[in-house]
């Protein structure tokens, strides 16, 4: 039983860090700031939560602390990414040429 739990925990750890790897790859490959925020925040949030779940399977006595870390990440990480995207838009960051729709700029132009 505990052997099975160990193997599930190890596989969850590897899956979580694989999501971190994909997040880092997206951070390098994406063309502009907003796509980089998208890749760098969502994939890493999922990866860290999977890693914490794997650590909980490996050491069940640490469950409360790991759950607390996961809750903090789940609350603060999307908030910080939204604030950063708004700041990048206001400071005039360059958009990729494939970006065709910008609703925030349309709204600001409508009511100055």
């Amino acid at each position: 039983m505990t052997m099975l739990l160990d193997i599930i925990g190890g596989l969850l750890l590897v899956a979580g860090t694989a999501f971190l790897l994909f997040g880092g790859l997206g951070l390098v490959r994406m063309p502009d700031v907003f796509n980089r925020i998208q890749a760098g925040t969502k994939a890493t949030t999922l990866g860290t939560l999977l890693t914490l779940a794997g650590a909980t399977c490996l050491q069940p006595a640490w469950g409360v602390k790991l759950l607390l870390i996961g809750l903090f990440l789940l609350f603060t990480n999307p908030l910080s990414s939204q604030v950063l995207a708004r700041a990048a838009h206001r400071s005039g960051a360059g958009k990729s040429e494939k970006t065709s729709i910008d609703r925030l700029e349309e709204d600001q132009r409508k009511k100055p």
Partner: protein
Amino acid sequence: MVDWLIHLAALFAGVAFLLALTRFIKGPSAADRVVAFDVLTIISITGIVLAALTEGRGIYLDVALVYALLSFLGVIVVARYLEGGF
């Protein structure tokens, strides 16, 4: 078996760390570097959890708790500066 999986996870986290560091070094604007800083903090949380699993000490997780609050604070401060606040 589990040791081998933990080493594989550490290898993946190290490669992700190097990729985010590449973006931190050559990012054209300041916002790119802030995103890379955030991702580096989150990868450091994963590294701390792996170190705690390797050493077998649960007290190391408190540092990860501080990190989870800290990345939020740093990004908010830099975003306020980029918006022209303060």
